[in-house]
């Protein structure tokens, strides 16, 4: 029995979508971009003092702009990947304000995705609906989007990456050329890996992409099988090589200024090994959220004199600690804080004045712990060598809870919508000025910061649409959650119910996305078991990607159903 493929079916029978005139399509796109711009037009950069986040990124960019690498080394300098600071510095060098740059990249990535979906056969009406969902995404009107955090940039890059992948998949299927899109894919992939630590999972996306490409290439007709297989190699190897080169260049940069090629000294080098050594010491505390109990640290402090000053600098535990108030760990510091306290304690004791000295110090302490374990002075059990301990079956219930929490964040993350811009910021004037210099925000008044009376009651510009943001977010979240769930169901149903209809690239694209989303959710849930709950912003990129992919997956299901019922030629 010969049944047309989804692609053949689309080519043969014009869809209702094509009735929408191109001029109307373009005008509506422009209107949506303008509407999104106006909706957020009164929202400035949310200047925030966060030594491991916002202020770290801004201060590093400030030093980069002054040709002083990331500034003087301290325990924070390399505690996060440098990509966001590079972006801030480039953006400032080009004279593009930070939020404008993020908004332009977001809109550009969305349009690029629309072009890819258009080539995949998605009609104009559906693309318009999809773009409306994308541009009115409530997370783009939230506090986290306006802070100097990595998630907005990571979200833009993720959408760009997905669109480039769809273009290359289509090229493998014989639709269009791939050269430009492979270049976009390679550049985006390479840079994205320098932005967030958890984006190391993008290697998983690339592997899934290779599988989807091979599948698409196996049914390719226009380009020929050999050419399609060549494209698979190019489409996967070039991004992989680019990522390797970019990481190498970044490491060279760090080594040239700080002495060692370490991009993130929380998860690379000697510090995670030291944490693993501390974790290996048996203690009376058996808590997944506590890898370094106070009892163990005190014991280590008395056994290893070099470690004693660090123990002396640790803040006391108790009911008023954020560990107790946010994560319910009151008799210890949970893993969300203790690793930072140990690193900060070593810095405060003057033991890690440089990256090289710090790495040597952590190595000496680790060796001392290992030696104490070996000679029996400490009772130790191997609990892995990385920052995160290996999973044990007894944490299954916690894993299920964590997965549920991460899934909820993916379906409907709390956007923390900004109803009005802040009048004053809780930062020192000098830090505010650094943010001002780096992000080019015009919403930091040095004089107003000194008096509540001199400060205006509200900002000069009043956005007429500001009142729409909160109701819009309320309406949007349940609808988007249902749509994303529907998208996932559509991919499963499409694969299960219509096996006789050959899969179009759009199906592989949907399957690729949801497989990656499942992989990411599982990995983050595993990390969350040990680090405690994440902030919803960690799922912004997956959420935004799902908003774009889900309607297309539903459309693909409908097409497959039509194709399966179409009369044979």
């Amino acid at each position, binding site marked *: *029995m010969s*049944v047309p493929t989804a692609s053949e079916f689309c080519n043969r029978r014009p869809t209702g979508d094509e009735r929408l005139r191109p001029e109307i399509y373009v005008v509506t796109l422009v209107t949506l971009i303008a509407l999104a711009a106006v909706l957020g037009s009164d929202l400035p950069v949310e200047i925030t*003092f966060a030594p491991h986040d916002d202020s770290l990124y801004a201060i590093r960019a400030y030093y980069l702009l002054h040709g002083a690498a990331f500034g003087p080394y301290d325990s924070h300098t390399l505690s996060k990947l440098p990509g966001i600071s590079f972006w801030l510095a480039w953006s400032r060098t080009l004279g593009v304000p930070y939020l404008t740059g993020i908004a332009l990249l977001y809109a550009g990535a969305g349009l690029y995705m629309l072009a890819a979906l258009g080539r995949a056969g998605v009609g104009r009406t559906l693309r318009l609906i999809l773009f409306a969902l994308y541009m009115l995404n409530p997370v783009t009107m939230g506090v986290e989007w306006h802070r100097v955090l990595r998630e907005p940039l990571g979200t833009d890059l993720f959408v760009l990456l997905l669109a480039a992948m769809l273009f290359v998949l289509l090229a493998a299927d014989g639709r269009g050329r791939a050269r430009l899109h492979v270049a976009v894919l390679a550049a985006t992939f390479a840079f994205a890996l320098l932005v967030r630590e958890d984006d190391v999972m993008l290697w998983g996306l690339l592997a899934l992409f290779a599988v989807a490409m091979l599948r698409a290439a196996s049914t390719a007709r226009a380009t020929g099988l050999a050419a399609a297989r060549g494209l698979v190699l190019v489409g996967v190897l070039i991004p992989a090589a680019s990522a390797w080169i970019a990481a190498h260049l970044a490491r060279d940069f760090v080594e040239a200024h700080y002495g060692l090629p370490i991009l993130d000294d929380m998860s690379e080098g000697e510090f995670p090994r030291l944490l693993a050594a501390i974790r290996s010491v048996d203690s*009376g*505390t*058996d*808590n*997944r*959220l*506590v890898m370094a109990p106070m009892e163990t640290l005190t014991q280590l402090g008395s056994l290893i004199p070099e470690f004693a000053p660090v123990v002396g600098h640790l*803040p*006391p*535990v*108790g*009911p*008023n*600690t*954020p560990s*107790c*108030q946010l*994560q*319910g*760990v*009151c*008799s*210890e510091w*949970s893993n969300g804080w203790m690793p930072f306290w140990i690193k900060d304690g070593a810095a405060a004791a003057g033991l890690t004045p440089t990256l090289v000295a710090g790495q040597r110090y952590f190595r000496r302490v680790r060796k001392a712990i290992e030696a104490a374990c070996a000679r029996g002075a400490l009772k130790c059990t191997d609990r892995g060598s990385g920052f995160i301990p290996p999973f044990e*079956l*007894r944490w*299954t*219930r*916690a894993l*299920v809870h964590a997965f549920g929490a991460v899934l909820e964040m993916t379906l409907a993350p709390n956007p923390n919508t900004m109803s009005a811009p802040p*009048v*004053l910021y*809780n*930062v*020192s004037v*000098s*830090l505010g000025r650094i943010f001002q210099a780096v992000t080019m925000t015009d919403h930091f008044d040095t004089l107003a*910061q*000194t*008096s*509540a*009376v*001199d*400060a205006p009651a509200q900002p000069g510009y009043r956005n007429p649409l500001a009142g729409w943001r909160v109701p819009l977010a309320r309406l949007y979240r349940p609808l988007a959650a249902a749509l994303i769930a529907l998208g996932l169901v559509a991919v*499963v149903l499409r*694969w*299960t*119910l*219509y*096996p*006789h209809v050959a899969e179009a690239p759009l199906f592989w694209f949907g399957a690729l996305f949801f497989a990656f989303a499942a992989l990411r959710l599982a990995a983050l849930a595993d990390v969350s078991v040990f680090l*405690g709950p994440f902030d919803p912003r960690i799922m912004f990129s997956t959420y935004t990607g799902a908003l774009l992919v889900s309607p297309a997956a539903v459309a693909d299901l409908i097409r497959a159903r039509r194709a*399966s019922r179409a009369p044979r030629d």
Partner: protein
Amino acid sequence: MRRIVRLLALVLALICAPAVAAPSDTAITFRVPVVPETARYLDLLAAPSYLALALENNGFSPSLSSRMTLNSRESFQIKAGILTYTGRKGPVFDYDAGLNLSLGVSESKFTIPVEVDTSELSRGTIVVRVYPPLAKLFPRELIDRIDFKIRTLANLPAQHKVLDYLDQLAKAERARGRGFDGLLEAIAFDAYNHSIVPSQAAPGCDRGEATPLSDQIVLLLTLAIWIVGFPVLVYYVRARRKAHAAE
């Protein structure tokens, strides 16, 4: 050698502390934006323990990393640091900010005067002056951190929240015919009602404690059914439909 020099500098600072304790030109000044309506509760500055409790009751703890100890109405302590109200000269409230230093065999107390000048309160600012020894030698970074801490505690939404809270308590106390002391009592009772039960900070009550694997057998079986069973079902349905279409 550097350690010896640092130790000498510390000892010198301790010895000189009483000498420079009096207000001098070498003050570190912080200008804090404050909503003028806080003038209604200016007397709370003379009872810093209650003010700290009022902040805690609204979720603005002076210290997130350790518990506050209240010594008296005028004095409270966080770790080794003590703040004591010492008097008032018109709009200026005087305090001693102290540090208990443990030198192994004995304890030494090191205090520096702090002034809170409320004369500009109607213009939306209060001025905090700290008179440490060798003030000019204080690193800018440290001053910025203190400035940040003050601003964190005294940001405008926080001030409005605390102000609303105090207004609410004061109104209730006025209705009962009680004045400022009634307000202080209400703050203290509220603090007690908000406090975390001490057993929550005890080992064995933390979230994340291990649970036996045997308690999770049913969960593991359910997961196994879903993780293995559902894909098998989906694959089976697909295979059947494929075979049906091929016929």
